[in-house]
């Protein structure tokens, strides 16, 4: 374990977090809210902590994979702990575990809240809540990589650990420029959404907060009824942008380079859009009669499907009241998740595609045991290592899922609540069904259950292994 390299990264992440608190602090000034000082304190804490960490750290140390994973996991934990300071100090969420839950839920773009009502919160706190989504969506280390330069291969090991999806490729030869391009696309799309929302008559603050939440596919609403009271136009805009942010960012990169053919060759994209279309059709048919017009039905169905598959977690209706076919579809969509290389969570469409294809290969192998065939995707053969790690991911995913459900069932809630609570946090969605449905919140869980769910959110966002590594004693050995 290469301690100095890790503390260096954590130190920089904290420094970055201090910088990222500036907008929220500005918001408190604009609205003349007294809570602005909490951001000053939080920034001071981040900066003070970062000084010894960076001083003890070494930039020119090369990281191996394990340091990369550990640095990412520890950075996210540090980020969440410091990010919770404003919530506690401002009195918005006085309980530290609750505040941590809310922050982790923000950074991991889950959007599960413990707050029964958000409208009474000061605006700067609401803004910070939504801003954590935006930071966590693309990843704080990716941001860091676009800002500072590290020794040789360190980049890749960090990026691998934070980027969602079975395999991580660079868009350009250098990690730094790749990170810059990713953030460029991210910022541009976010601003575009702000413009569309403003055009629909939403206030500046609301459209900013909503866009930040959509961009990270997070889902913290700034109203108690999430998106229900906004106009149909605004809901549709959010639906479209949620779907856009759930698309693999490589697609946008290829489009930017005018490589349309390459962009359209990405199979995941078509499956993703196909699943959305099919689910919307099925649910619209299933909930016909719930709403006045066909248009309204499709709008609500589309919004709910988009919010769940991209793992955002906004809502326009209480889908817990829908018939069980629709609810089942939504729960299944929770597991599918968005595309790899997007800001969404879940298992990812491309992973399921690889699994589906390897199941098909396995079946063919029974027909012709001698047949040699490789798994192909996007017109290329998929490396055996990627297939193996995808299988491993699924195995670990199921295992962690089962353990988490067991752990939170100690609270004595009903099965649907426990199951969907874990599904909604592990896949970074937000609302589940029953007691954790769209109109409820996670506040009633015991502190232990909340800690389990916090772990699930982090594990789900960081693709399981960085968090699991922390529990492996060998990780901490010097050799």
């Amino acid at each position, binding site marked *: 374990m290469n301690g100095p390299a890790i503390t260096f990264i954590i130190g920089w992440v904290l420094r970055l977090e201090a910088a990222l608190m500036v907008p929220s602090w500005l918001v408190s000034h604009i609205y003349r809210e007294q809570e602005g000082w909490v951001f000053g304190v939080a920034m001071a804490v981040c900066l003070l902590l970062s000084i010894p960490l960076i001083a003890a750290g070494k930039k020119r140390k090369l990281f191996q994979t394990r340091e990369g994973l550990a640095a990412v996991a520890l950075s996210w934990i540090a980020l969440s702990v410091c990010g919770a300071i404003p919530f506690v100090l401002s009195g918005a969420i006085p309980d530290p575990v609750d505040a941590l839950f809310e922050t982790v839920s923000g950074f991991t773009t889950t959007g599960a809240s413990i707050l029964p009502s958000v409208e009474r919160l000061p605006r700067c706190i609401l803004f910070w809540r939504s801003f954590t989504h935006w930071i966590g969506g693309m990843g704080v280390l990716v941001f860091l990589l676009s800002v500072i330069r590290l020794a040789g*291969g360190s*980049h890749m090991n960090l990026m691998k650990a934070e980027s969602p999806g079975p395999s991580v490729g660079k868009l350009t*030869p*250098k990690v730094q420029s790749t990170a810059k391009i990713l953030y460029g696309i991210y910022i541009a799309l976010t601003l575009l959404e702000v413009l569309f929302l403003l055009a629909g008559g939403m206030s500046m603050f609301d459209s900013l907060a909503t866009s930040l939440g959509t961009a990270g596919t997070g889902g913290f609403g700034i109203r108690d009824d999430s998106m229900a009271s906004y106009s149909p136009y605004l809901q549709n805009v959010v639906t479209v942008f949620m779907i856009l942010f759930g698309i693999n960012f490589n697609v946008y990169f290829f489009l930017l380079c005018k490589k349309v053919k390459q962009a359209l060759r990405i199979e995941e994209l078509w499956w993703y859009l196909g699943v959305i279309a099919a689910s919307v059709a099925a649910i619209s048919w299933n909930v016909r009669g719930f709403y006045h017009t066909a248009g309204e039905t499709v709008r609500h169905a589309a919004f709910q499907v988009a919010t769940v598959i991209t793992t955002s977690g906004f809502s326009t209706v209480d889908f817990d009241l829908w018939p069980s076919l629709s609810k089942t579809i939504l729960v299944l969509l929770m597991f599918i998740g968005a595309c790899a290389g997007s800001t969404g969570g879940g298992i990812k469409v491309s992973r399921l595609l690889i699994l589906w294809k390897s199941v098909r290969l396995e079946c063919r192998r029974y027909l012709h045991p001698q047949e040699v065939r490789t798994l192909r995707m996007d017109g290329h053969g998929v490396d055996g290592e990627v297939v193996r790690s995808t299988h491993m991911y699924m195995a670990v995913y199921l295992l962690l899922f089962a353990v988490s459900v067991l752990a939170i069932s100690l609270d004595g809630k009903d099965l649907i609540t426990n199951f969907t609570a874990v599904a909604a946090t592990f896949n970074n969605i937000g609302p589940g069904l029953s007691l954790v449905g769209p109109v409820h919140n996670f506040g009633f869980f015991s502190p232990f259950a909340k800690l389990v769910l916090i772990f699930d959110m982090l594990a789900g966002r960081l693709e399981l292994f960085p968090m699991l590594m922390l529990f492996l004693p060998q990780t901490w050995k010097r050799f």
Partner: protein
Amino acid sequence: MQIIIVGCGKVGKTIAERLSAEDHDLIMIDLQGKKLQPVTDALDVMGIEGNGASISVLMDAGIEKTDLFIAVTGSDELNLFCCLMARKASGGCKTIARVRNPLYSQEIGFIKEQLGISMVINPELTAASEIARLLRFPSAIKIDPFAKGRAELLNLKLRPEFGLDGETVMKMVSKLHTRVLVCTVEREGKVYIPNGEFVLRDGDLISIMATPQDASDFFVKLGVSSKRIHNTLIVGGGAIAVYLTRRLQEMGIDVHIVEIDPKRCEALAQQLPHATILNGDGADQDFLLSVGLERAESFVAITNMDEENLLLALFAKKNSDAKLVAKVNRIAFDDVIDSLDLGSVIYPKYLTADYIVQYVRAMQNSIGSNVETLYKLMDDRVEALEFRVREESGVTAKTLSELDLKKGLLIACIHRRGQVLYPRGQNRIQVGDSVIVVTTTKGFRDIRDILR
């Protein structure tokens, strides 16, 4: 610059390491993804699995925006073909191909011209030239040419018989009445850039800058064998041996080659009618002694086995006074090997990489940087750079003693209109000069970077 490298073998990897350290955008192409993996993990480069001669792979790699294309796969023909395709696909990027077949080497002018290849590298030929240069100055461990060969940077180890222990650099120069300049001193793993008061010790590895004449004068005055060598014993009859023998014979040196394979011996005898070809096992001590190892003035171990080369050199060190040269191709324990004190060890893959890095530096000249030549010394801890002064600037405004220079930096020599000047305090840098700077700071791109 954006650079594509095809072939992720020893040489490809070394080139990538060097170029990535200089902040270029690198894309590696190899047929085997397994070979790419370790490189993309360790360096900030993009890896693409595929055939470097295929247009679709080249397009994936972004050939249209590429400035330089380097083909270093194992096959000469593939390298040439890759370069041809890359040139056509990109509309005229610079291309470098590795071509090692001696047959093609002889026709290289025609090939370069017809295929439009900017540079052809032949690691064996490069290695042979390097060895030949080393044998010219038997006391030097390593020699790098500057200013088109008018100045040289030589490394040598101070031995007790030189009588320089405890002398300052200034005393040494006045004692020997020479015009050399001590650029760097490596002692116990640390590198110093000495001033006049620096005290030398036996065992120091020093590098000096001098013209070839002054260098040989220096060696005469040190009292060491500036005596030219007259014969050499080569173990291993590969391609390097052929190139080397031709070079050495031009210099009038008598060459004996030991080769184990009788068929290869016959081929060598055909190609090199004036050399003595000996068929036998180079690893056989009695055989080596019987062919006159003890009387050899220089000994070159260039078999295909790195370990054998090192052991042979150690054996020769014990049994003769010969100047030793050993080739290490594959193994990467540089510092361990250096600690064996074998004299000169050459690494063909590094030589090739150095060569390409120099070319890239020169290419960058036209886009901003003014570095003409660059050498990495002392395990990359020191850089010796040659700058061309193109315009008036802060550097030309004052005499050298008045310039406010950065620390750990030495102006080693000024090359002005074909003449080499050893800089003194009252000298002034002029437009049109080539200035050679030795420094422990990395990343200089322009002569103005030397100012504080």
